[in-house]
């Protein structure tokens, strides 16, 4: 399935210099990668944002940042993916529950705890009545949203879709949820946990100043013998990638599939992108932003590639490939 990314934004732990250079966050190895949502005040008035959690502020601001860069100001659909949903509000409401014992509880945290809160808030802000979906399928959440988006464009139900992927890190609950995520525990070398918000305008035609063409394939089962032929087909269609972005995270079992790809496409430049954003279910959304950024503004740092392949899998399943080209 194919489309064009015609605008992209990210609120993530990474910072970008004026010349487009990606600069890793200064932090110790096991500290989590946290984003700074202060930029949200440029997009959301203080009265509205006062009761919003960090992820809600960043989610709405990220969407508005993307729309600011886009020539399309009203999408035909809004599709999002999130692995953990709105954890801060979930924990806030549960916290009040355990102490309240019949006392009146504030509904705000409950209302804002639902996974589709951000997609709903964006629709409300834009008065967008189009298709609106939120996916939550662990490490395949963003890709599920991407697939729905590509289908909408292919079916001509939409010309432009606002697509987002986001997750937050709130400490204890996130740490606990993540502790089951590695296929085998090897905590010493694993990349720290992260969080981030990334939004894209996906269009069926190359509008705007710097459209980036993408094609996407995924293999749902665990069998690597089914995976490499798909990569081969993508290369036949689009050409060999000059750079690959992969979701390695330091866990040996997780990283094995990526090693198979490195062996298959030998001598290609690799960026293991989680060193910029940390580990979280929708980290692949950040990878999609990074690939778009490299092809539009930040190429010189990475030898000006013409084509980039992004590869992620989720605990040995859902091997997903996106080929980006100028």
């Amino acid at each position, binding site marked *: 399935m194919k489309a064009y990314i015609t605008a992209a934004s990210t609120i993530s732990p990474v910072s970008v210099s004026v010349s487009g250079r990606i600069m890793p966050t200064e932090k110790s190895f096991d500290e989590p990668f946290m984003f700074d949502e202060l930029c949200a005040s440029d997009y959301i008035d203080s009265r509205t944002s006062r009761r919003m959690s960090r992820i809600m502020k960043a989610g709405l601001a990220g969407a508005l940042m993307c729309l600011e860069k886009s020539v399309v100001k009203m999408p035909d659909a809004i599709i999002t993916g999130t692995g953990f949903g709105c954890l801060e509000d979930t924990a806030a409401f549960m916290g009040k529950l*355990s102490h309240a014992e019949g006392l009146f509880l504030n509904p705000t945290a409950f209302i804002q705890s639902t996974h589709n809160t951000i997609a709903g808030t964006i629709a409300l802000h834009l008065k967008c009545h189009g298709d609106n979906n939120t996916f939550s399928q662990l490490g395949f959440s963003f890709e599920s949203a991407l697939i729905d988006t590509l289908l909408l464009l292919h079916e001509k139900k939409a010309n432009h879709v606002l697509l987002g992927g986001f997750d937050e890190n709130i400490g204890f609950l996130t740490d606990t949820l993540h502790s089951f995520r590695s296929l085998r525990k090897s905590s010493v070398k694993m990349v720290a946990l992260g969080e981030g918000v990334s939004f894209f305008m996906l269009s069926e035609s190359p509008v705007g100043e710097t459209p980036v063409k993408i094609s996407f394939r995924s293999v749902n089962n665990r069998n690597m013998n089914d995976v490499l032929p798909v990569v081969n087909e993508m290369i036949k269609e689009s050409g060999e990638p000059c750079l690959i972005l992969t979701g390695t995270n330091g866990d040996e079992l997780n990283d094995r599939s990526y090693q198979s790809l490195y062996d298959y496409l030998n001598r290609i430049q690799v960026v293991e992108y989680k060193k910029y954003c940390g580990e979280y279910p929708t980290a692949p959304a950040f990878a999609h932003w990074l690939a778009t950024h490299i092809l539009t503004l930040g190429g010189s740092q990475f030898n000006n590639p013409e084509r980039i392949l992004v590869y992620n899998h989720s605990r040995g399943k859902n091997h997903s490939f996106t080929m980006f080209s100028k």
Partner: protein
Amino acid sequence: MKVFVAGLGVISSIGNGVEENFDSLVSGRHGIHNLSEEIDLHLPGFPVGKVSFSNAQLAETTGCGRNWPRAALLSLFAAKEAVKPISHQKNLRIGFISATTVGGMDQTEEGFFEWQQNGKINRRKFVHHECGRQAELVAEFLGIDGFVTTLNTACSSSANSIILASRLIKNNIVDVAIAGGTDALTKFTLNGFSTLLILDNNLCRPFDATRAGLNLGEGAGYLLLAGEHALDVANLTATCELRGYANANDAFHQTASSAEGTGSFLAMRGALESGNLFPSEISYINLHGTGTTNNDASEATAIQKLFEDKIPLLSSTKSFTGHTLGASGGIEAVFSVLSIERKMVYPNLRVSSPMPEIAAIPVLSARTSNISHVLSNSFGFGGNCSSLLFSAI
């Protein structure tokens, strides 16, 4: 390509399995008997629609025998029933498209409260927390290694799963799909809805002028959807067609629906347009009909505007099951398909005063009727509105 329904699976407070549910619907026997103190001691007095099986019974009857969250157990029960027609098929690309609003929250909240009380994290309470984990557990148990995903758009979640499944079939990504959703009663949701002041202390009265709120329920419902080719290959019997659908956003408020029912109107009209039908051709609408002042007024207004003087038969089966949140789209899709299959319209229980917003009274007692086309509505927080259109073949 046309997409057909070739299997059904459901579990709710009115029955375990399709036959028990259908029997309750035609007999007028609702399942809202339990009270909220069974879920939360500190929140007494609200009627709820609880599934009769305990977690242990669900684990045993499904054969999984494991300490899964209740939503996953309910999901497995219903998905197992739906998947029966293809359980021995080897050559089909099978998708599992599920939905839930709070996933494994029943275990998470226990673990959270324990941690708050004694500072210890019992990891086993958190391992199945995420929405997507329920579908992952069920798909692995059923041996489905194709496309698996989970939607969460509040109360319209499983209607959107069914829409996505249909599109995956039409676009040749899967051959068949089990699509629907699940949700279990939890302290989290019970207290959440209570703080919104939309729970009724008595049995809910959807589409009654003096209605006072909703009753929460739980359960799971799935359709087995198949494209024309798969019907032949797997020798399946189609009972009706998923002829149309639409997903729209009300874009009015986080939780309330607009008075005009914009989202509902767009969803119903969109479903009719996608199925190429006029409003007058609809035989029956299975309403979202939660029993809240706001939803029912909004939905009634939208129906009146769309159907004008040709309002079809109407009923809300939430008067039987309660509002099953993420499962409601799936459970009510099963009821809608059965309505066509068995030519039966279900009553809307406990209506005595008609609503002023609509020039029609809901069906008051179960009756046979020649049902050609059914609309099933599901509207949720976040303005998410979806409608499914099923047709006799």
